[in-house]
């Protein structure tokens, strides 16, 4: 369990970091919190020539909250989100979901940008980015681009990031105060990766009908996904036990999770239906 040989640099600006990445033709890798990359190095699943540490890029460590939503710098750590009391109002879904990420020591190091770039299909932050139509801000040799979460996650541990690109910010659109929401996941042990999880929100129109339902699921596909068919069941209707049952059934039918050592696919599909049902009940309470 020893990492392979590599060089190390800790640049002072994003521009310098990008040029270091660009200088190695794909053989350089960013290290942020290191809480996913270090295990990958220990197992030698990754063997870059050069590690580019973002530790000095303090600008990327800010949580900015404004009229247009919440902007999480790529270097924002789980413990920073946990201790920012503003988020309970500005983005309660984010605050709740991040409570489930990893353990105390890992939460002191692990970052938003690292999690989103790592793109584990069971990870909470990518799930929230997908559910909430987040916009990713990405800086590379070619300049800055903004990409929607739906286009950013491309497969298991895969994203649209180029070798010389750095994710600098995740922007979650503004959160109306009256919005209904829930986040539920199931893991065998607190802090472990979830077997499956569901994030959801919706607004109510003047007739108490559901509008703009967003349901995201983690741990059930090769990337975080939206359950659009279940969303369609909800939109335009008033919440009821019957509606919840119909949305849950639709969610279960619409996914085909892989089986692994932790759980068979059918179990995960049932789990999503159960979590969605509970989440919808909770959101309406």
């Amino acid at each position, binding site marked *: *369990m*020893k*990492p392979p040989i590599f060089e190390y640099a800790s640049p002072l600006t994003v521009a310098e970091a990008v040029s270091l990445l660009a200088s190695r033709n794909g053989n350089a890798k960013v290290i942020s919190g290191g809480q996913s990359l*270090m*295990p990958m190095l*220990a197992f030698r699943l990754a063997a870059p020539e050069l590690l580019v540490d973002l530790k000095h890029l303090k600008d990327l460590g800010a949580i900015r909250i404004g009229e247009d939503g919440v902007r999480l710098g790529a270097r924002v750590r789980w413990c920073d989100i946990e201790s920012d009391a503003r988020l309970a109002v500005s983005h309660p879904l984010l605050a709740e979901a991040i409570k489930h990420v990893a*353990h*105390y*020591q890992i939460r002191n190091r692990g970052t938003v940008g690292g999690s989103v770039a790592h793109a584990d299909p069971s990870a909470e932050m990518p799930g929230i980015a997908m559910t909430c139509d987040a916009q990713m801000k990405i800086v590379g040799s070619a300049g800055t681009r903004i990409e929607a979460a739906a286009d950013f996650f491309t497969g298991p541990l895969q994203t649209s990031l180029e070798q010389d690109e750095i994710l600098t910010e995740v922007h979650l659109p503004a959160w109306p105060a009256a919005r209904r929401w829930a986040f539920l996941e199931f893991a065998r042990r*607190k802090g472990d990766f979830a077997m499956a999880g569901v994030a959801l929100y919706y607004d109510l129109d003047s007739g108490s009908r559901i509008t703009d339902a967003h349901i995201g699921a983690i741990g059930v596909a090769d990337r975080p996904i939206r359950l659009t068919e279940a969303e369609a069941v909800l939109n335009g209707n008033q919440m009821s036990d019957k509606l919840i049952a119909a949305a849950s059934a639709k969610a279960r039918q619409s996914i085909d999770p892989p089986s692994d050592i932790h759980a068979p696919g059918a179990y995960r599909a049932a789990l999503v239906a159960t979590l969605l049902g509970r989440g919808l009940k909770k959101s309406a309470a």
Partner: protein
Amino acid sequence: MQIEFNLNGQAVSADVEPRTTLADCIRNDFGQTGTHLACEHGVCGACTVLVNGEAVRSCLLLAVQVQNDKVVTIEGLSGDELTPLQAAFRKHHALQCGFCTPGFITTAHALLSHEPDADEDRIRDVLSGNLCRCSGYVPIVEAVLEARSSYRDSGSK
């Protein structure tokens, strides 16, 4: 690469390969073997140390990343006497083989230094990332609960 940091109150320097983890550096370059290594990939918590007062896993950190930082290991928490936290572990039989103990003590120390009023749920939550094969965890939680009073009296340690 040449690095300098503060280890348990002393300014130290070492010439390390970039791939050297902080855990290996502390153990091999400075002979402080109280920081234990088990899984070496972030799942057991045995290697927990404090960097600038925060509990982190030293197997998931490179030595070159702690340049100019303040690192405290289990060796740095007490002199010849047991601290109240360590004494509580002894009183409650919160260890058997003791392999996991440095990781639990450093983690609990960080928690109680920041949150001396942590309740049992919070303590269980924080310790959930540390594995112990011997104790069954209950005595560890009891020990940490008891040690809280010493952190309230004295601020941090």
